[in-house]
């Protein structure tokens, strides 16, 4: 087992009087995919924000390569090699692939005040980086990011993070908005990133997707790690039950059936 790149030790986070995370202990290792599972509101997003430098823990510490670090800004997290890719991947829909790939680190050629953006180089590097992840349909770096499919955008964002030396890749629900084919695409890319020795934190509430790529699983329930296990230790049904808040899916289904029967088949009114 390789050494952990990032680990959380007794991390708590509260916003004012509201406790969002209690006593989180997790380890993310190189070449491993940690799947973070949990229902909506379980604290997954807050946990990602701690790792990507948006929020700081109220108590407890984050360690990188064994040494405690304070990730005070997203920029600092990125500099330390923690890259976060959000649900919709590329965030500059009206920029070309080459331009968006190099935002903030533009390659230039020429001299003095006449340094020009090296479009050809940028396009070539960007296209090659995406293609190395198996997305061979992207061949023209001048295409606008907004014209790519959801899976291609995710791939572009992941390829960008890897190209700029990310060691830890945080993927926030990358497959949530995608169709079956596109999701399979992204899962292949997650595997490729793992093969290259990156540590991947994969956030999802789709158990199937998690089981396809995960080596290590953590289930969050109401801000606490309810279960922490490795691949093969639990079945799909057990994981689904855990995510449903400890209740078994069977009980949940039974209660829904009972409700529907007693309310003439009308679903309950929305909670809010």
């Amino acid at each position, binding site marked *: 087992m390789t050494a952990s790149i990032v680990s959380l030790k007794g991390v708590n986070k509260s916003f004012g009087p509201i406790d969002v995370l209690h006593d989180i202990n997790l380890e993310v290792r190189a070449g491993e995919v940690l799947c973070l599972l949990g229902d909506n509101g379980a604290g997954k997003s807050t946990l990602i924000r701690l790792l990507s430098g948006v929020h700081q823990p109220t108590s407890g510490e984050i360690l990188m390569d064994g040494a405690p670090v304070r990730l005070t800004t997203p920029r600092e997290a990125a500099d330390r090699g923690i890259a976060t890719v959000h649900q919709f991947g590329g965030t*500059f829909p009206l*920029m070309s692939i080459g331009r968006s790939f190099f935002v903030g680190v533009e390659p230039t050629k020429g001299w003095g005040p006449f340094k020009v953006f090296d479009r050809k180089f940028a396009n070539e590097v960007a296209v090659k980086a995406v293609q190395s992840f198996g997305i061979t349909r992207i061949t023209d770096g001048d*295409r606008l990011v907004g*014209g790519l499919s959801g899976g291609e955008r995710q791939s572009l964002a992941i390829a960008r993070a890897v190209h700029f030396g990310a060691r830890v890749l945080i993927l926030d629900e990358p497959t949530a908005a995608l169709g079956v084919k596109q999701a399979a695409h992204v899962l292949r890319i997650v595997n490729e990133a793992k093969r290259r020795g990156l540590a991947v934190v994969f956030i999802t509430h789709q158990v199937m997707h998690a089981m396809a790529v995960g080596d290590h699983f953590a289930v969050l329930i109401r801000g606490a790690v309810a279960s922490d296990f490795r691949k093969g230790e639990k079945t799909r049904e057990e994981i689904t039950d855990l995510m449903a808040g400890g209740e078994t899916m069977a009980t949940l289904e039974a209660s829904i059936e009972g409700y529907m029967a007693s309310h003439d088949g009308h679903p309950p009114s929305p909670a809010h």
Partner: protein
Amino acid sequence: MTDPNPRMSLGALLRRPETGSFLGLAAVFVFFWIFGGSNFASPNGAASWLNVAASLGIIAIPIGLLMIAGELDISIGSMVPAGSMTCAIISGHFGLPIVVGIGAALALGAMVGLINGLLVVKTAVPSFIVTLGTLFAVAGLLLGLAVIITGTTSVKLQAGPEAKLLLGHFIGGVFQVTIFWWIAAAAFWAFVLHYSKYGNWILAMGGDKVSARNAGIPTDRVTIILFMCSGMSAAFVGLSQAILYNSAQVSAGQSYIFNAIISVVVGGVLLTGGYGSIFGIVLGTLTFAIVNQGIYYTGFDANWASLIIGILLLVAVLMNNTFRKMALSYAPKKKGAKA
């Protein structure tokens, strides 16, 4: 079907941000050429709309850059008269060298831009509101100070021959020298936006400011500099008008606010930021100036000009939306496949 190459190049042309504005300009030009007769396209006629386009264009370009970066500056409406009055008071009323007047006007523009930029960056109040505030504040300050200092709201300025030649000259008797300043400004900003890395920063900021900052772009600094540039450009137009017309008035700039925004939007810049081109803004400015001035060469009542501009704006926005969608949905054909 046909050979893919000409199709590809036509497609590439259609996907550029300025395609819509080019078609608009061509349509407007042909319209006024037909109804305006030979006078419209004669040197005198061309000068009438080129002169209007030049001073508007110098302001419209930095406004367009701000819009591409996701901001807006309407304080230019006060900065134009502030620039001309500052120059006229210092070099006309007090009789100091014209260089001092020009320098002071540009410095004032930079300062107001700095205040705009700092307020927008530090308070996160929308730049429309911030610059609406400075629009009125500068107008009031200008009026108050002008009356205290000179006792009047209109100041005479007699610039020397060098200043006249550079800023207030009519080439061939009809073309204002500002046209060349406009061309120079367009070339400079086109380099910045389309060829330098700073252009990438501006586009990224308009696309998503938070991601741009996380990618290491000094978004605050870029925003402040852009506001300073728009303030200085407005002051520059103001002072060059004072030198050209030998006088400056307190109220002579409010029309620039809407005219600049119309030019920029007709020029294909996306109102919400992240998309646009300098060439498009130049075309949009020309289109606006042609409609604004061309009406006098036709037999129509000049009151109809605003109607045309209004319709033009709406058509331009719809057309630009269509072309932007085309740019987004574009994917290259597989090599070797028959297109």
